[in-house]
């Protein structure tokens, strides 16, 4: 499948917050109530359309377990977007956000778009973290915020697509250097030859125009 851009995402957060389920819901549109622990790093992909452009999302779903942290860290590099997930029914997962955020900022490029996600919004009865708290945290750290439910698929699509829109906007604004694959953005096969030749002399400032 041809695409205009490929964006690389990572999904991070404590174990059991529903990272893999979010991915499964987004890529396969299904929900698996009994999901095995993620051992290592898994991977999913889906095409979306933004602004009339086909964009391939390559999503890296990491293990939340502390013991796998060193492995997962090596995957931060080269991600254009990150979904930082916590579980609204478990306050400790919310409390760990700072650590995750630091980790992410430290091991990835600074322009990475981070979306804060409070998952399991279907379990309203067992909520421990208020939506306002999530919003406040996001505001404080300059993140986008959203509450989702991988079970009911509420906001799942939006979470991924909004992140992609943000990245796309940053490309338009020239924040990302799209020719540096370490940024987690790749130009699609049919676009690359023309763009590459155009970008030889150009700097980040006018790259937005090149992709049209």
């Amino acid at each position, binding site marked *: 499948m041809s695409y205009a851009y490929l964006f690389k995402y990572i999904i991070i957060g404590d174990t059991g917050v529903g990272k893999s389920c979010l991915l499964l819901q987004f890529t396969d549109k299904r929900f698996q*109530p*009994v999901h095995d622990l993620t*051992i290592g790093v898994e991977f999913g992909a889906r095409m979306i359309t933004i602004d009339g452009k086909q964009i391939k999302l390559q999503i*890296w779903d990491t293990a939340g377990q502390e013991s796998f942290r060193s492995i997962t860290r090596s995957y931060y590099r080269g991600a254009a977007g990150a979904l930082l997930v916590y579980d609204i029914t478990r306050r400790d997962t919310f409390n760990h956000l700072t650590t995750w955020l630091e980790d992410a900022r430290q091991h990835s490029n600074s322009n990475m778009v981070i979306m804060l996600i409070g998952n399991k919004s279907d379990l309203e009865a067992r909520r421990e973290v208020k939506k306002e708290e999530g919003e406040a945290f996001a505001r404080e750290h300059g993140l986008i915020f959203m509450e989702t439910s991988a079970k009911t698929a509420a906001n799942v699509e939006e979470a991924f697509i909004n992140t992609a829109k943000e990245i796309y906007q940053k490309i338009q604004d020239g924040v990302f250097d799209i020719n540096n694959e370490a940024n987690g953005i790749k130009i699609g096969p049919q676009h690359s030859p023309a763009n590459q030749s155009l970008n030889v002399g150009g700097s980040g400032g006018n790259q937005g125009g090149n992709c049209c």
Partner: protein
Amino acid sequence: MAFLQWRRFNFFDKEAVKNPATDQVFDLLKDVNVSACTSGRGQLVVGDFEGNLYFINRQMELTAFRAYEIRVTHLTQLKQHNLLISIGEDEQGINPLIKVWNLDKMERGSPTCTRLTRAIPGNKPTPVSAFAVHDNLNFMAVGFENGIVLLFKGDVTRERHSKSRNVFEGTKRVTGLVFKTMGKDVILYVVTENSLHTVNITAKDAHMKLDDTGANPGCIVMTDASQDNQLVIGRPDAVYFYQPDGRGPCLAFEGIKLQLHWFRGYLIVVGKESKAMPRAPVLGPHGMEMNTVTVYDIQNKFIAYSAPYPEVIDVMCESGSIFIFTGDRKLYQLQEKDTQSKLEMLFKKNNYSLAISLAKSQQLDQDGLIDIFTQYGDHLYGKGDHDGAIDQYIKTIGKLEASYVIRKFLDAQRIHNLTKYLQALHKSQIATEEHTTLLLNCYTKLKDVSKLDEFIMTKNREVDFDVETAINVCRQSGYCKHALALAEKHEKHEHYLKIQLEDIKDYQKALAYIGKLEFEPAESNLKQYGKILMSQVPNETTELLKRLCTDYRPNDKPLIDQVSLDGGIGKIQKAQAEEFIHIFVNNAGKLTEFLEHMIEVQPASSNLVYNTLLELYLHDMVHEKVISARVERERKTLELLKNPDANYDIDQALILCQMNNFKAGILYLYEKAHLYQQILRYHMEHNEYVHVIESCKKFGQQDPQLWVQALSYFACKEENCKSQLMETLTHIDKKNLLPPLMVIQILAHNSTATLSVVKDYIVRRLQMENDQIAEDERLIKQYKEDTEKKRIKIEDLKTSAKVFQASKCNICSHALELPSVHFLCEPHSFHQHCFESYSENDMECPVCAPENRKIMDIIRAQEQSRDFHEFFHNQLERAPDGFSVVADYFGRGVFNKVTLITDQTGKGVSGTSTYR
């Protein structure tokens, strides 16, 4: 920590390989100092440090030959060709030799060596550390201790045309080389001790570094197509997957890995017992270290087998099983269990979801899968997880008997779940009527209107249920709107109207609906429901009926449809108005309106229409109290009666008029039916003298008897009606309708009629009769005289002679010459030749013949007509004086027998005939 692993199963049966000859444990390699192993095409190949190659075939028979003088270091068996490529040393300190063996061509117990090449990177001799051959036999890569990779291009089986070049130069030992074909490109993965690279050998050796860490020898393997042909690298922290463009996922299997192998979607990892494991490293027999062989199912994410083995030398995957060659020179075979027993194991552990994914990846047939879904469903149901259970049962739709599931949930009163199942059933289009009924009942029981809406109202959806059932159920459970929508959508007009009229009682809509229908359904439905509609919405119904009975076209149809556009003449569809009359029961006003419209636009309506309309008019008229309105109505009624197009039944109309005492109508109808007597009698009954006289005058021409009747009528009248009598008499007199005696007899009945009334009449009459008698007598006298004359003449002819003295021929008027012919009649004389040329008959005088014939004809006619009795009766009836007719007939000899006497005289002399 212990749980940071996949679920563990035992899907492989371990078995020590036996020597078939001795039935003992296979020990033929007992003393071999193994240096390299490979396998392919049904045989295992082992090389040793003495330079020997051993082949073990399927029957576990061992063959061997010496390939190198010193030792064998690397072996590769190609998958698609029976070629074995080996690297080893023939001389100490000299560069290693690559030998290509054609195993199909045996030469004195050993295969033919088709190629022998020295592996030297540049001019510095170094040992070979990695080796790979592309299956297309065109590329061969050799990696060296010093980090150089040499690529041989061209047919690998021959030295000729083979070129070699350095494609990579690293700093550390090359530990692995793997070819991968991507479309037209051939990519070589180069793994060194500290890095991982790709070299695109078909595109100018384009080089890319994939990772900063490398791998130990043996810990590099290629997956098969089920996992996208990824490169798998085992490192102590995890197993990493690579694509040519970068690192892919990783699986965090901890522990030091010694070897990686790939077998049919399984990743086989030979590792050292992890230090973290609770067990201390166990030493095997002969003080050998124990290794763990773990088989991972990458796709379904579980451990398919795991067991310790003493110092694993190599693992070979051949003939559908895994052969593990251990340090104690034993060969173990791991045989994969069949899918069914694997599934049974999973079922025992209630691990159904895994069973499902496993079954799918093993391409189990549909029935098998259904079976799993059913079991899973049963299991979840048993656990009380009805939601989950129904999801599984839904997957069994089409195979598993639906009633099995339905009964389960029906008994448990799990209507929500049942609903879901039934929905799915409908979606897969195998729902029966009962299912539809049940589903709709569920909806209604749950009062789930929105779902019901969705089920029923969704537009442009394929209908996957039985519409009539759905309508009925909805209707019964009071969801009339839904039933209505369904009926409308599926054009079940009957149902629609029934619901609209009987349940919702929205007559306007029902009417509008009918108006939109095509002709036939509109007609039949209107017949059926017209009465109800009429009683509720008379105006609209009447309008619709008017349309229906004139030139009907559905409401929403364009005025000019395709047919008329195409130039064809659209069929005018109209219903018979009389068929709808019954609808207007109790609504005479509307019926009048309707019928008026009908006869206006369609004058040739049937007589039923006119009759009914007439009846209505009369009815209205009779019940109209206001005089002026009544007059108006009478006028209208009469107009109708007089309408030349009006096709009413006269008799019925007459009865109607009489019943309603509508005088003008009655009279008109009598007149129309030529019942003048009736008119007269009508007037008489009502004692309307003037009218009596008038009608007599009016119709006297057609029926003179009217006058007679009028006379007797007036005669019977006790009151004074002299003038009328006079007039009547005058007319009777004029037309001579009655003999005077009768007149007097009639008048005698009247006590008031005096002689003066009839005096004139009688005097005139007697006078006339006198005259008549005189005339008759005169005629009699004349006839008598004539008769007498004739008698005398006949007598004369009979007795006295006749003298022929004519001198001229009566034909040519010339002087008579002989021969001549004479007749007695006049007497007439002719030349014979004249006579012969003129006469038709020898007996007849040509001069008298026409006259005679005329008389004969009259006589004959009279005789003939004598027998026409009918004619006689007719004449008798028509004649003003019957007696004269009888007399005339008598005169013609009605009572005579044969009267015609033909007197024949001799030929050539004379001929005459007697008469009376």
